[in-house]
């Protein structure tokens, strides 16, 4: 029975249906809120269903409109994409719950929920598509929606951040599109499975490095790799926390997903060259991201620089290109999405205490709001990689994979960066949580521990939910690690993917 339900399409349907009904009820933001919650909840369930059915029955393929693979649009869900769909569902659901009490009524009136749904639609489509041009289209759906979200509310810093974000996104889309054009010219294929075959049979392998560079640049900007990350700390801290958290957690990871997909399935013709470039970029990304964070004094700015730094770890896993390293990268992706988003959500809750994100004006959270401090400790020390929290397992697997492939230098960099991450997390901890609140700001305190929970219970509960998930993958890492290993094996054996999409 279970394989008869079309799980590959289900996540996309529920999102677009939710969007349509949000449009039909445009004037009623309360109804939109309900529709969005239901549809995101169903999206989460569909994600679970998809993962289960992929796990049991292997790669799921859908030829839209019954046009067979190289010609039609193909949706493919292998384990890696199913995991990503599921985690994006978890995130979207949490953020939607968080946004009930975080997003102002004004912003909801201007269509926060429909745009959120259409952005998730784009994200989910990027995970599921099996066609490079189609991937570009999904990316555009996601980006255009994220442009709307980032300026929603029209405040000045938002517009300023959005200009940088929009311009760099356009440039990166240009790179990707150029890459697709060149690739199509060389191989005559757009379907990923067919491309993979065409590239392995291509007589002039040197030529293929050109589109590889274009894709590396294009997706590198989206994933915020060194030296193309400057847009991220400029734009992510500006919108409200729900939006910033969703983007921080998810959008750059879609770029990482695309990089992993392209550099395992398509560009494996010259691993020595392409993956050493990736390795160097990953080391620099880690290092400069964390250095940028050390210089900041704003809660959200520090977190934004850390996104950059953590992206380096995922790309390091891809660059090492062994089963263990890729499994580590996937594990790290999941861990990072949970921990990083939760840190953003917590920064929003801390801001509720006296209205600031600036660390020099915050303080006394530990004394006044012990629950929030516990949530922060779980996520922050997980991000920094303190055992036994989830970041430790991710970094441990990556370091082990690095030793096995004898890349000692990158392992050293990654351990150093972990240390520096701990430094800036403890900086937040010291200033916002442990040190007493500056006298001048004391009169601005609006809540005590109980009234904060009473008035912002959705925000606190969503944060607790993410913290529990982080704890789960920390204390029971075996499930996720074995799942990641299976996904990595699928990624490293493109024949499985090709045979599923193009049956002989």
């Amino acid at each position, binding site marked *: 029975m279970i394989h008869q339900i079309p799980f590959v399409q289900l996540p996309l349907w529920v999102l677009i249906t939710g969007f349509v*009904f949000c449009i039909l009820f445009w004037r009623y933001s309360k109804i939109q809120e309900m529709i969005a919650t239901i549809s995101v909840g169903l999206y989460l369930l569909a994600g679970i269903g998809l993962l289960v059915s992929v796990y049991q029955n292997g790669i799921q393929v859908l*030829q839209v409109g019954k046009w067979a693979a190289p010609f039609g649009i193909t949706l493919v869900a292998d384990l890696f994409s199913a995991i990503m769909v599921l985690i994006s569902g978890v995130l979207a659901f949490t953020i939607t719950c968080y946004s009930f009490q975080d997003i102002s009524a004004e912003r909801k009136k201007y269509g926060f929920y429909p745009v959120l749904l259409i952005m998730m639609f784009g994200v989910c489509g990027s995970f599921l598509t099996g066609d490079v041009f189609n991937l570009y289209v999904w990316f555009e759906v996601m980006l255009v929606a994220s442009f709307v979200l980032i300026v929603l509310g029209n405040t000045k810093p938002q517009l300023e951040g959005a200009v940088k974000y929009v311009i760099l996104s356009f440039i990166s889309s240009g790179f990707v599109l150029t890459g697709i054009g060149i690739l199509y010219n060389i191989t005559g294929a757009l379907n990923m499975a067919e491309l993979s075959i065409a590239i392995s049979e291509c007589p002039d392998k040197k030529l293929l490095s050109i589109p590889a560079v274009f894709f590396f640049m294009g997706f590198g900007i989206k994933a915020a790799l060194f030296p193309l990350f400057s847009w991220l700390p400029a734009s992510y801290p500006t919108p409200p926390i729900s939006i910033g958290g969703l983007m921080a957690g998810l959008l750059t990871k879609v770029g990482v997903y695309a990089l992993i997909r392209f550099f395992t399935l398509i560009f494996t013709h010259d691993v020595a060259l392409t993956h050493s470039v990736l390795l160097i970029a990953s080391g620099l990304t880690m290092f400069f991201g964390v250095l940028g964070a050390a210089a900041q004094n704003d809660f959200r700015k520090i977190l934004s620089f850390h996104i950059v730094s953590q992206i380096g770890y995922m790309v390091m896993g891809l660059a090492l290109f062994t089963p263990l390293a890729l499994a580590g990268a996937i594990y790290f992706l999941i861990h990072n999405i949970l921990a990083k988003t939760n840190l953003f959500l917590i920064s929003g809750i801390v801001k509720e205490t006296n209205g600031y994100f600036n660390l020099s004006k915050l303080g006394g959270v530990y004394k006044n709001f012990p629950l929030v401090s516990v949530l922060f400790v779980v996520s922050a020390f997980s991000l920094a990689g303190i055992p036994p929290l989830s970041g430790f397992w991710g970094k441990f697997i990556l370091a082990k994979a690095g030793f096995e492939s004898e890349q000692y230098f990158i392992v050293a960099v990654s351990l150093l960066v972990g240390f520096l991450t701990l430094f800036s997390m403890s900086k937040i901890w010291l200033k916002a949580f442990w040190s007493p609140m500056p006298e001048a700001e004391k009169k601005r305190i609006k809540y005590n521990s109980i009234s904060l929970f009473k008035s912002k219970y959705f925000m606190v509960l969503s944060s607790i939910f993410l913290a529990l998930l982080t704890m789960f993958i920390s204390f029971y890492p075996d499930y996720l690690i074995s799942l990641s290993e299976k996904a990595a094996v699928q990624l490293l054996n493109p024949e499985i993917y090709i045979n599923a999409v193009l049956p002989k």
Partner: protein
Amino acid sequence: MKTLILSTILKALAPLFLGFAVYMFFRGHDNPGGGFIAGLIASIPLMIHSMVFGYRATREKFRINPRLLAGLGLLVALISGLFAVTMGDPFMTSIWVEQKLPLIGKIGTPIFFDLGVFLVVFGVVLQITFLLTEE
């Protein structure tokens, strides 16, 4: 911008535009045309109307909320794709009625998809026009 020439021409051209839109809509399956172009053409008379007579006059003649049209269009397009799923085929597979009808020819799900596209384009263009002329 109330000009006699435009308002007179509009009366003559509006039926022509609408007729041409219908023609384009049905032509679109095998030839250039289709829901997108038909939607653009059908919205031209209303755009000119709002340029000539102003936003309020147009809204008095055209009372439907364009946003609603766009939403309905998306819904129609989505449902046209779901037909195939109930028959066990992949999403968006075309399903045709065997019997030929006079003038129109065979009826199938693509016509509903095109109708959806028509409504979306028509609704979005009108929404943009109204927002711009409302000022």
